[in-house]
Structures are given as structure tokens and as C-alpha cells.
């Protein structure tokens, strides 16, 4: 635009040959380079979606005669993903004669995370002690193997909870992702997904105030 106005002015007077500048203005090019660089840097860092890796235990086929692994009842923590982002949990094993009361909580930082943290405290203490010893020089360990050593502590852990995650039929995929996320935040070493039993389904139904269907009542 600026150029056009200038040209119009020149038309009235005598036409002079334009003096070529000795320098080429590099500003636009530099601008461009800067911009492109920032742009590419930002987009490559943000556009890629993140993934969360989960490894499930191999399925036991029906024809194979493999005993399901036995787990200590005292360490078991059952989590049931309920409808409307609710989470229910109960410790130990559900006895059909007298079902244990379901505790209701949610996905907030003070909800299920607190429950899991309480139960995983012993492991945290161990990791904390270990880190303190490393810092004070009591245990000598290479810097890069620290993470591996902590991971080993987690897998060797035999006091933390074994979490069984079950999902009620109306729960959403979001809840499933959230609970795996909680597991990694809290550092639960052992957790797995199992099918919800009719008993647990009934327990959720009673806490939701739904009358049990005749099939489940039997």
C-alpha cells in the first residue's frame, strides 16, 4: 500500500531511475525464520497425543487347567467403578452371607487417592528411607540406576495393597482411564482388572437404591 502511494506521487514529476539500495533488508527473512522455528517447536511438542501404557496379565483360557493365583485376603482392596463417576471400595473378600459395606468416594485428590495412599504408606516409607540413605551416602548407587532400584522396591513390595478393579455396567471409559491413572500416581505395584461379580453388582445396586432384579436375588 505504501508503495502505491509513492508511485502515484512520482508520476507527476520527472521519472528518475530508482537508486538501488546496497543492502538487502533481511528483517522479513529473519522474522520468518524466527516465527517458523517457534511454530515448529511448539507444534511438535503439543500436537502429539500422549499415551498411557497398560499391560494386562495373560488371559487364562477356559480349556487350560491353571489355578488362578491366590492372593492374601488382608491385602486385597476391591475398587468398583460406579455410574456417574462414583467409586466404591471395600477391603478383603465379599462374603455372600453378609456383604461388606461399600464405601463411596470419588476421583478427587481426597477421594480414592487418599484411600490408596493410606494403604501404600509402608511402601512409600521404604522408598523414602531408601532415598534418604542414598542422599546421606549410606547406600552407594549410580545416579542412573536409582529409578530402576525404586522400581525394584515396588515390585518386591509385599505389604502394599493388591487392587482388584471392577467396573459396573454403566461406568464409562473415562473412569477406567482415571483409575489406571490413580494407580500410577499412587504407585500401586499390583493391580488388575477383573469382571464384576453378581454379588458386587448387587452391592452397588443397593447403595444406588435400585431394587435387585429377580435373577440376582436368587
Amino acid at each position: 500500500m505504501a508503495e502505491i502511494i509513492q508511485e502515484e506521487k512520482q508520476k507527476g514529476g520527472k521519472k528518475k531511475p530508482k537508486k538501488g539500495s546496497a543492502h538487502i533488508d533481511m528483517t522479513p527473512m529473519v522474522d520468518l525464520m524466527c516465527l517458523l522455528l517457534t511454530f515448529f517447536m511448539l507444534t511438535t511438542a503439543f500436537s502429539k497425543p500422549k499415551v498411557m501404557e497398560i499391560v494386562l496379565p495373560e488371559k487364562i483360557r477356559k480349556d487350560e487347567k491353571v489355578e488362578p493365583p491366590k492372593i492374601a485376603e488382608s491385602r486385597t482392596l476391591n475398587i468398583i467403578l460406579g455410574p456417574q463417576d462414583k467409586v466404591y471400595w471395600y477391603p478383603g473378600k465379599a462374603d455372600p452371607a453378609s456383604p461388606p459395606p461399600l464405601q463411596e468416594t470419588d476421583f478427587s485428590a481426597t477421594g480414592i487417592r487418599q484411600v490408596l495412599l493410606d494403604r501404600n504408606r509402608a511402601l512409600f516409607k521404604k522408598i523414602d528411607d531408601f532415598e534418604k540413605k542414598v542422599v546421606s551416602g549410606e547406600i552407594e548407587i549410580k545416579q542412573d540406576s536409582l529409578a530402576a532400584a525404586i522400581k525394584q522396591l515396588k515390585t518386591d513390595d509385599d505389604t502394599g495393597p493388591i487392587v482388584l478393579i471392577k467396573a459396573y455396567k454403566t461406568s464409562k471409559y473415562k473412569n477406567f482411564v482415571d483409575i489406571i491413572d490413580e494407580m500410577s500416581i499412587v504407585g500401586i505395584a499390583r493391580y488388575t482388572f477383573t469382571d464384576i461379580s453378581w454379588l458386587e453388582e448387587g452391592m452397588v445396586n443397593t447403595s444406588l437404591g435400585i431394587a435387585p432384579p429377580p435373577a440376582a436375588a436368587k
Partner: protein
Amino acid sequence: MPKIKLPKKSPHIDMTPMVDLFTLLLTFFILTATTRPQEPAPVDTPFSVSEKVVMDANIMTVMLAADNRIFFNVDNGHDTILHFRPKILAEMGKRYNIEFTPEELRKFEKSNTAFGVPIQQMKAYLAAGNMKDREALEVKGIPIDSADNQLALWILFSRQINPAVNTLIKGDANVDYPVVKEVLDILQDKNVNRFNLITNLEAVKVEQEITE
């Protein structure tokens, strides 16, 4: 004292750099907007704190849309000469006695969008020119019922042709869990026990308090 002569300033500001910039940005955005693979259905992935970035190649994606439809996508491998996609489609066609022409195979190779059509309608899907015509065919998604479990076959052939393939699950936050469970069961039936769930990054403060 001699007066300091200030250089005469031009009343105009040179707009060239700015204009350059805007043209460039515009072209760039237009180009990137068209080349990004179009999703056949909107998928709002849930949030997690995981910071692992999705891999570039050797991926197959099972997409679960909010209305519980299932889509599938697989890539051509880490090199374009590998042509995994047409091989998988040909294998799939063999199973269902559908002969795909070289032209159709090429079309399938070039498209990088997830598809949600039963194999019987794949020919019509490939013949459809634009996304709208294709979407009309994708009302049901890929069938996963036990009588005709096409998703299981897609997974099986993808893994046969590209053994290094990684499994991604891209689910909408509001997909019903039973559908997710079914997909996980199908994957586990085909001996896939390692999954990657696509999520968005969420900023969470983790407070670890250790009381003695």
C-alpha cells in the same frame, strides 16, 4: 553548537515483513489443516498424567466413538515401501471372498483415516469420493459380535503382516465400559496384552505426605 540533524523519518511504516508473515502463516495453516488425517467421528480422549508420547509408526488404532461405534486404523509401517495396508486389506478380502482391484488397494493405502465399515461395504467405502459419502456407510462401525467378529480379524491380519505393530486404543471419555471391556477381550484373545491408551495430558499436583 551545530544542530544535530535528525534523519527524516518516512511517514509510512513498511508493511512488507508483516504482510509476508501473514501470508506465510495463512498458507501454512491452510496446508496443515487439510493434510491432517480427518477423523470419521469426534473423539474426546480422557485425561491422564502420562507423559509418554505416541509412537510414529507401526501402530494400529482401535477407535471407540462416543456412540459406541468402533473404528479401526493401521499404518503402512515405518517405511513407505512396506505397503502394509493393502496387504492387510487383501488378506481380509481373501477371508471374505471379496476380490479387491489394484486400484482399490492403492486407494486404501493412500487413505490414512480410521474406517468403520464392515468388510462387505469396503468396496463402496473406497469408491466414495468424499468424507460425507463415507460417513453414510459408517453408521454401524466395525462389527464385533461373536458371529462375525471383523475387528478380531483386522487385528489378527495386522499382526500377521506387521509383527512389530503397537496397539493403541483411542476411546471417547463417554464410551460405555462394557464396550471397552469387549474390545480388550478381543485384543487379549489375539494375545495382545500390552495396550497404549491415548489420553490428553492433565496437570495434576501430586502431594506425597508421609506421616510417621
